[in-house]
């Protein structure tokens, strides 16, 4: 996409400068809007409490010496370490379950010309529509029946209810872009349906699979209600539940620790995201040959 629509040619160099100025001018507000709240959270995490409640001070910098107190609170007075490891383990399991179910389903719906495939696909997506506030009570009975109450395994069980529908559709879109003749060639070579799927289609579908994994990770970290309803013990909670439930005490907000806790999990995920962003983009579009 070298064809910029923004510039009007004079000399090549002028054109290039003009283009860059326009781009940077355009991109700066976006970066500011996206990043400022993050910066604000970060600085809050290192401020002493009295520094927060002063109106006459410049809020962007430290008016009192920065402190690590809020992180100490986080690690020594709460189960933050356990929450992080719970969140990570839950996400890994959810991603795994999602892959094992959504990838085959997406393939079946996209490629195998099953009668009723279209409606089945729509049905699966529709299930994504049912909001958690409706589902959490019936689900709590299921969780109890399986004896998973108050263990983070309960969340491993229920989070796929929202990752599977989405990832199935994602994978459906992806598989539709894989050239059909690749599989056919494989089958002619005696691979069989399963062989063709595993040996030929899956390897070229890595970007789609990665995208699904990233989604499963991100979605697992957005839930609050299920975590709250199913997991009460302090050392079993995931981060998004543990942090607000233990760092807001009645009418006292532990702002520094709250913000620090959010960033300590959010930033690594953001970095991870960026590693895979190109693949991720491929995954959404269906990437073979592009």
């Amino acid at each position: 996409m070298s064809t910029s629509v923004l510039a009007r040619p004079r000399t090549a160099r002028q054109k290039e400068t003009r283009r860059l100025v326009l781009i940077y001018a355009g991109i700066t507000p976006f970066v500011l809007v996206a990043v400022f709240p993050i910066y604000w959270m970060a600085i809050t995490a290192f401020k002493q409490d009295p520094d927060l409640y002063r109106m006459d001070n410049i809020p962007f910098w430290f008016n009192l010496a920065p402190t690590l107190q809020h992180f100490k609170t986080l690690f020594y007075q709460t189960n933050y370490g356990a929450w992080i490891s719970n969140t990570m383990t839950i996400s890994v399991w959810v991603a795994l379950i999602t892959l094992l179910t959504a990838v085959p389903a997406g393939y079946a719906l996209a490629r195998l010309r099953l009668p009723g495939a279209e409606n089945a696909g729509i049905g699966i997506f529709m299930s994504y529509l049912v909001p958690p506030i409706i589902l959490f009570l019936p689900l709590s009975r299921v969780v109890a029946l399986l004896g998973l109450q108050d263990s983070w395994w309960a969340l491993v069980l229920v989070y796929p209810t929202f990752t599977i529908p989405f990832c199935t559709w994602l994978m459906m879109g992806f598989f539709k872009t894989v050239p059909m003749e690749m599989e056919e060639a494989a089958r002619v070579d005696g691979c069989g349906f399963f062989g063709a799927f595993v040996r030929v289609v899956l390897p070229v579908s890595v970007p789609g699979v990665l995208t699904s994994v990233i989604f499963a990770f991100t979605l697992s970290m957005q839930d609050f209600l299920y975590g709250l309803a199913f997991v009460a013990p302090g050392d079993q909670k995931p981060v998004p539940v543990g942090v607000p439930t233990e760092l807001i005490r009645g009418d006292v907000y532990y702002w520094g620790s709250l913000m620090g806790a959010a960033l300590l999990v959010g930033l690594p995920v953001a970095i991870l995201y960026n590693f895979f962003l190109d693949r991720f983009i491929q995954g959404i579009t269906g990437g073979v040959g592009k």
Partner: protein
Amino acid sequence: MTLFAPDRDPLQVTRRQFVRTTSIGLAGSSLATMLAARRAPAQIKGSNLRILTWSHFIPAYDAWFDKFAGEWGEKNGVKVRVDHIPHLEIPARMAAEFAAGAGHDILFNGSTILTRIYYKTLADLTDIYDQIGKKHGGWIAAARSPVEVEGRIYGIPVYYILLPMLWRKDLFEEAGVKPPDTWEAARVAARTLKAKGHPTGIQLSHCNDANLNWRSLLFSFGGTETDPSGEHPTIDTKEMREALRFGKALFDEGMTPEVFSWDDASDNRYLASGIASWIHDAISAYRTTESTNPNVFKNTYVGLEPAGPGGKRVSVSAPNAFMVWKFSKNQAAAKEFLVHLMDNDKQGMIESTGYNMPFLNDTAKKPMPVIGSDAKLQVLQDFPKIVAFFGYPGPYTTQIQEVANLFVLPDMFTRVARGQGIDETIKWGLGEYQRIFAKHKKA
């Protein structure tokens, strides 16, 4: 479903907890044996007790409570586990446990009291309620309202949280205004001090403090929410009109529109920043200024609930109670523990640094622990006589709980403050109350 089979018995303590509990147990056991006042019946030995409570405003109280429960368990051979969640999230958790038919044995209700919704699935605690009362000089008058259904008791009220007047004596004296002993004096002070950059504020928004504070004002003005039976809303009264009119004046003269956005914590910050002339809030607001703004801490005083025009004082507080699920297999242990907890009511009050107000007359006798010996807080000892809960003078019913959850009463004050007519507001409020009351009757 082997994939999801729990890798351990969910009731078994994790190693980490075990280490924690036992170390607490070892440290405490010698003391515990010395103090061993009661011996629990043998049948609770070997059972598990799971307690759900809130994250107390005072973290040290939570630490004490966990230790206290652990020591009791150690002594009685009961495996105890305590989980803490924020009080606002308890209803969701309770609904989930009910639907599951499993969960904790003892659960906590605070700010949202759901006794009447769940009483059919709650254990009848009338026996220990009476037993505890008899042993400790009886319960204060307001104690029954949140836990009684049709003459039976389904919860043990443990303490309530007061919202007294917190006022800046230095500012008041400087401006030469009277202490806020009546609502009228509070209004005059707010008007005078707002001009000097020190307004007041009471939440005109959707939060629990709004529910509590405006009710205190309404009831002190002689207004009521229901009749004593709790069956009929009493919204369209002369007193209600007066209270609404006063609320508007208080807002116009003494507050800024900030109060429309406030949550439970905003008035704390208002005080901590040194702006507020007075707030009507829990003493945590005052206590936390000790570290955040020592000057404010030094000059803030605690006052009795302001009197209404007729001299009446009603302080609406947030009650907190423990219930026991009927489906709990460890009811005996749960009851034993609750009795033990109430036997140590005074200790609890001390550990909460005077924050927990006692439901038991013996503890409420002057001088009360902590607050009795603190010059500024002594006045809190006069609250047990005037404390009331939602629904006053009727009981704390399901209908009233829904009215509170939908913030109908604060919304009435909000409407008037925003300029809606009193009649129109009362009509709206009455409509909401009647709709909610009718619905529950049908159910």
